[in-house]
């Protein structure tokens, strides 16, 4: 007894001292994972089974709910719309922001600081408050009920953040890079796209990831600009489903799972980059 206390005592007490900390972390881990676990297993259950067997694994791994969500509730269509809008906004944002950030960070021009300030101020501007004027503008351009309209609006909103990231990464590249290329007769467009842009790949991925997350998740602009079912994006469709298919829980759970799948996959692949991007950039919202 006493021998045990002497030999094992300090070790055990050190581990005991750590127990409250681990418990706290474990409790929050459960708080995050349990709802997601329920979401995933409920996708495979009928509504009756969800009531009878809440926490257990489904009796059979039936895919009916997914099939119904994709076809009967037409989520497949919304899914493709979201892919087009997200892809389009990511590409447009990256191209125009990298183009703008290149002269702003690497040329010595008198008005650089002012122009950069103008772009950066957009990081804090609450664009939702301009939605009435934006609505009128979109209507006059014939961009209501169109995926192109959403792509343009999302790019406009994400450009400030993207210019900020690109300018920060491009500023620190050695000036010999473009000077040598200029000596060899390369034009400015070539220098940007073939020399500078490949050197700031981390910036490209940060901008791509955070633009993709923000655009895929957004709900406010589709809500005010999209009326036709043909052009609805996933979050907008989900907000309708939850009310419409209120009683068919399995179907709603399955549609939630489908709509978060791309982000879930991306997160698993890029968790580290996202963690570091947020830690360094002080947030992505």
């Amino acid at each position, binding site marked *: 007894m006493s021998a045990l206390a002497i030999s094992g005592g300090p070790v055990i007490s050190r581990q005991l001292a750590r127990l409250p900390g681990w418990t706290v972390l474990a409790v929050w881990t459960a708080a*995050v994972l349990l709802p997601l676990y329920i979401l995933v297993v409920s996708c495979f259950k009928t509504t009756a089974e969800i009531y009878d067997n809440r926490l257990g694994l489904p009796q059979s791994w039936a895919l009916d709910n997914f099939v119904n969500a994709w076809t009967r509730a037409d989520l497949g269509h919304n899914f493709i719309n979201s892919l087009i809008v997200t892809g389009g906004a990511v590409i447009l944002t990256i191209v125009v*922001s990298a183009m703008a950030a290149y002269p702003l960070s690497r*040329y010595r021009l008198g008005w650089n600081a002012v122009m950069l300030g103008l772009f950066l101020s957009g990081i804090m501007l609450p664009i939702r408050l301009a939605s009435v004027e934006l609505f009128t503008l979109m209507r006059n351009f014939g961009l209501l009920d169109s995926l192109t309209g959403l792509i343009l609006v999302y790019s406009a909103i994400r450009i400030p953040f993207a210019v900020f990231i690109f300018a920060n990464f491009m500023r620190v590249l050695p000036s010999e890079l473009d000077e040598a290329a200029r000596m060899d007769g390369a034009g400015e467009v070539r220098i940007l796209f073939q020399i500078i842009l490949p050197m700031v790949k981390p910036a490209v991925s940060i901008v791509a990831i955070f633009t993709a997350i923000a655009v895929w998740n*957004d*709900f*406010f602009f589709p809500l*005010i600009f999209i009326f036709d079912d043909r052009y609805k994006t996933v979050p907008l469709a989900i*907000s309708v489903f939850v009310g419409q298919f209120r009683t068919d829980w399995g179907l709603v759970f399955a549609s939630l799972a489908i709509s978060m799948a791309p982000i879930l996959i991306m997160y698993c692949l890029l968790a580290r980059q996202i963690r570091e991007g947020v830690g360094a950039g002080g947030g992505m919202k």
Partner: protein
Amino acid sequence: MSNLRRTSSLKRTQQRMAVLFILPALAVYALFVLYPLAMSLWGSFFVWKGLRMVEFAGLSNFSRLFVFPSGARLYGALWHNTAWFFGIMVFQNGIGLLFAWLLFLRDRGAAFFQSVFFFPAVLSPVIVGALWRLLLAPGGVVEWAFNGLGLHQGSLTVLGNSHTALGMLIAVDAWNWMGLPVLIYTAGLRQISGQIFEAAKLDGAGNARMLFSIALPLLMPALGTLTTLSFINTFNQFDIVYVMQGVQGNPSYSTDTLVTYFYRLAFGAEGAVGITDIGLALALGTMLFLILSTGTLLMLRFFDRHTVQL
């Protein structure tokens, strides 16, 4: 001489190229962000008929905003947003600091916990809201668990009760974003030199003392970032309310926010449904813009001034 000419011709080329390079981004950004925002602020001083500005109205939209019946909505929403902000500061950014500190003390497994905690933050607030609406619904898994554990009997109607609904939405929002403070505090803690903590330990400081007397003052930049982000996010709050409680902020406007109120005025869901009051909406938008910009600037200044330099 020729060298000089070459530099100046390069300078001219660069100036021309700079304009071409900046133009696409500037055009999109100016057209879809700066112009509508400026027009919205300008339009709040006009009388509107439908979507048309008809007459300069001075401050009359603003005075209408503050008196009954819109005043009641305004003050309600202002209070809900303020409570939301303080709730997030305590339950998200406060508890997030505790988590970050625990992860900092024992480095092992930190990456795993950070990834798990941050995961909900990459999900759409719409999905998070819909998920929690199902979990919290009558007959949902939360009610079932409370009944099973004997914590509560019968139907659990947190979202249908005007005393508890707002608190529940704040909790869901905190669940959504908890990973953000954890990541930002952790990054801040890693920048603090380990020698400071070693010295404090030698002087006999305990964990709590080190957290509150050493880490916290040095974490001011991180706290500043989080406070500002939480403030901007709170005063833009819309998605979770819309999905969980409807655009009226049910029950009986107890979860109404400034942006849900703005949305109803602008897109016709306030009062007689389908009728908009653009003048009032824009006045509310301008006020919200003032709250957001002055609040953000004050916070950035405050935290800049209270940053401890080493």
